[in-house]
């Protein structure tokens, strides 16, 4: 029964529960020229290796045991740690819409909305040749933790995390060639700092409630491609980032470090 419940939670998290982190770029390195408009619908899959491991290895046994008896302090720690990892760096699937406009002077501005993510980014382009372009950019994002898919904030039945609020500050550099009006390739690196806050309730397993605050750092790279013609392109991108961070919950430190693998795909229109 408990196992079935846990499997259900995991399935829910993978199906749409976890908020997809705001890590994808999903656009070519060439910034939009003045007056140019870009609209994109992108789908992001986020696979954080640490959270998945923590969930499968730790939480399963503890959740099973919690059905039958009081948990030991170690089991409680395991369950809380897994729940925190799922909530703060958890796997997820999400969709977002990007709206971007060329401001002129080789700047473009992009607004992003989707799955509780609200982000704004500014890029400055540097043409390296008629084929190659370089861009430097910054993005600020607010992640409410909400999703379009209705689901409970219970990551497990035993530890509830709610009111997650995360800010993401990103710096990125990207470069890449373009082939006429039909293909684009880009790659780059990015760093992201994410101060976050969430409420954790472990009263069902003999713990208490606590508001936790932490900062997670991500650093890594991405590679993407777009193929289409003139206005419409199909886009794929892969982000691989290392995450660093610790969260202190109920006087215990939990390591949130690991790797995040985030493939994205979708359609982009440039007009």
């Amino acid at each position, binding site marked *: 029964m408990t196992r079935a419940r846990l499997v259900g939670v995991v399935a829910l998290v993978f199906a749409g529960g976890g908020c997809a982190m705001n890590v994808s770029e999903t656009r070519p390195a060439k910034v939009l*020229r*003045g*007056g*140019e408009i870009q609209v994109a619908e992108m789908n992001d899959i986020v696979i954080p290796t640490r959270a998945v491991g923590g969930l499968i290895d730790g939480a399963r046994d503890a959740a099973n045991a919690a059905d039958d008896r009081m948990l030991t302090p170690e089991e409680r720690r395991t369950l809380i740690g897994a729940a925190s990892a799922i909530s703060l760096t958890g796997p997820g699937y999400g969709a977002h819409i990007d709206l971007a*406009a*060329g*401001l*002129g*002077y*080789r700047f473009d501005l992009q607004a992003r909305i989707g799955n509780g993510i609200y982000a704004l980014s500014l890029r400055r382009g540097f043409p390296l040749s*008629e*084929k190659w372009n370089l861009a430097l950019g910054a993005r600020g994002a607010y992640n409410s933790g909400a999703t379009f898919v209705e689901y409970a904030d219970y990551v497990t039945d035993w530890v509830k995390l709610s009111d997650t609020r995360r800010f993401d500050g990103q710096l990125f550099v990207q470069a890449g060639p*373009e082939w*006429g*009006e039909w293909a684009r390739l880009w790659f780059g690196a990015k760093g992201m700092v994410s101060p976050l806050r969430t409420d954790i309730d472990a009263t069902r397993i003999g713990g208490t409630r606590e508001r936790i605050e932490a900062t997670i750092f991500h650093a890594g790279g991405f590679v993407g491609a777009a193929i289409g013609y003139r206005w419409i392109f199909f886009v794929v991108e892969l982000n691989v980032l290392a995450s660093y961070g610790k969260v202190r919950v109920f006087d215990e430190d939990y390591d949130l470090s690991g790797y995040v693998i985030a493939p994205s795909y979708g359609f982009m229109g440039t007009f």
Partner: protein
Amino acid sequence: MIPNGGVSARTPRATVVALAAGVLLATGCAAMKRTWEFQAVPVASPQVQVTPGRIGVAQKSAYVSFKVRNMSAVPVVVEAGTFVLRLPDGTAVIGKTSFLSRGYEGARGLLTRVGWADAKSVPALPPGGEVEIALNFRQYGRDLRRHPTLTVALDGLLVDGKPAALPPLVLTAPPGAPMGEDI
């Protein structure tokens, strides 16, 4: 006494902010304008006069229309061949007439070659008569708006089957248009 560049205590701060925002917006808006209307002066030969119509230059394309008037005393046959637009650095962009016209002409030519249709004769333009030609020049990789002048060679204009002896149309950017491809 207010020093140069200072703001009076009576000057509402909101006015200063609005003024600054307005200047920034105006600068940005100019750079963000998608299509600039370029200008050109008419050119003429003893046979025909070319009077520019609408010339809209966007980032990747330029639309150029002009009227060709028969200035001679006899009817002439005016045809549109291949036109070339040149950027100041010499980059050439081939112009095309409308997709529908090209499709119709292509289909008609095919039918004529297989013998299913008679060859179409181009009607002659009577003295004083006018015909309008519209071209679209499209390229990728350059911003056509950011050049002070573009030229359209008119040797693609055929008069009685021969290239018209006309100087090129010089398309001039409007005053205030931001220039330079780094914009």
